[in-house]
């Protein structure tokens, strides 16, 4: 039960951060005159964030450990995609001092890495619990 609650809270929090952080806490460049690549990147991140929130809810509902293990694997892949969107798949501004490159994308990378590490840790934990049963 404790594991399910911690998983749910963690993924809901990080998912929300990914979804709305780039519009609030760590905003991208202003798009008043022109929509730039970074804007599309963070739109894609909003989708990723929603997925992460959804897996958080699922990990609370699902009691089965194997199912939650699969969710962890899925989240690791999602975290990797979250990193690839701004770094390769879509990208952002060329200049390193632009907000997207200096603030938004680094924040996304850190949140994504935390998601990946958390899910790897939980994977190891669940495998041990399944092994002991």
């Amino acid at each position, binding site marked *: 039960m404790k594991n399910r609650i911690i998983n749910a809270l963690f993924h809901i929090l990080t998912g929300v951060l990914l979804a709305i952080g780039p519009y609030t806490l760590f905003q991208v460049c202003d798009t008043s005159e022109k929509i730039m690549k970074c804007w599309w990147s963070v739109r894609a991140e909003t989708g990723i964030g929603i997925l992460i929130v959804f897996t958080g809810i699922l990990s609370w509902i699902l009691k089965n450990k194997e199912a939650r293990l699969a969710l962890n694997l899925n989240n690791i892949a999602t975290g990797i995609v979250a990193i690839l969107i701004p770094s390769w798949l879509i990208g952002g501004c060329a200049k*390193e001092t632009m907000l997207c490159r200096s603030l938004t994308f680094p924040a996304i990378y850190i949140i994504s890495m935390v998601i990946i590490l958390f899910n790897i840790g939980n994977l190891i934990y669940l495998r041990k619990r399944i092994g002991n049963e």
Partner: protein
Amino acid sequence: MKNKLTVFDIAWKNVKSRAYRTGVMTLFIFVLAATLFTCMVMLTSMENGIESTSKRLGADIVVVPARYYSSIENALFTGEPCTVYFDKSWVERLEEVEGVESTSSQLFLATLGAECCESLTQLIAFDEADDFVVSPWIKENTAKSMTDSEVVVGCDLGLHEGEEVTYYGVDFTVAGVLEQSGMGYDHTVFVNLDGARRIIQSESAKNFLTIQNDDFISMVNLKVKDGYDIEAVSNAIATKYEDIAVYITSKMLGNVEKDMKGFSTYCKILSVILVLLSTIAVVSIFSITINERKREFGIFILFGTSKKQLIEIIVIEAAIITVIGTLAGIFASGAVMLFFQNLISANMAIPYLELDFVGMLVILLKCILITLGMGCVSTIYSLINLGRSNGVDLLKEGE
């Protein structure tokens, strides 16, 4: 099962079994290590930035249009674009001042950086014939002279050698990317006077730039003759001419160094306070934990563990917690500084030169030494008490 548990294995199991307390102690050390590492990296980077800037400035005296000192300072140290101008004839007038050995001028233009980005980039035009500020540096990085359709760019602009760029509708090729300097030049595009002329004469520039020809300059750099006092020459210029501002470059840096000293003092005080607080916290938690385990130690002594072995176990426990906390703190701090390095250097009002691998390694080792020292200190009180106790006293605790 492993053939023989070593004192390290025993210490590791003890640490794992007290997850909450281990976590709390590790957290204190994590915060300490992260703060120490961040402060040291920032301070060293700033020192390197100032040293680099001092080398790069080249000139003894800088003359700019009056009232535009802070714009020039920002342009030089942080690369914030500035567009201030005065007449080119000032170069000849300043050359005539007694004590002036040579002059070189620079023209500051600001331009849109790239198609996508709506922010200004500093463009500096210089005369290759008499320049002694940027030319030597550019020559270090690109062996040949620049043509009028070439630019050399600072390392933070995200441009590569051979890339095509356009400023005010005028095409240029990137002839080279300069090494990091830690100052505003990292965000600057350098063009020679012929290239600058092409820009000023373009249709787009006419709508944007306030100058219409190349009879203007933004800054004059002066070198003072040997044997002449720089301050005296500077005062002579300031006395002789109005409408200009005269600055001694070493004093410009002096202000920057003063700001850095303030930051450095703040960091040092913060670090000392954190080391003290963390030590007190870890010593307290460790002492309480050791105290509660007296009977356990008595049992160890009873079946023939020497005090030396017992001390090894305790010291290794402290070392495990310290090393984990330190590495985690340094990793977290390093990751944040690495990812946000552009934000940090953009927001620093002080030149900032990122550390190389060796520099980072030296700081990492210093942090580990400080935290390990703290970890050892946290065990001393407990170990002294343990050394004084005999097995019977230890066994009686918890009865």
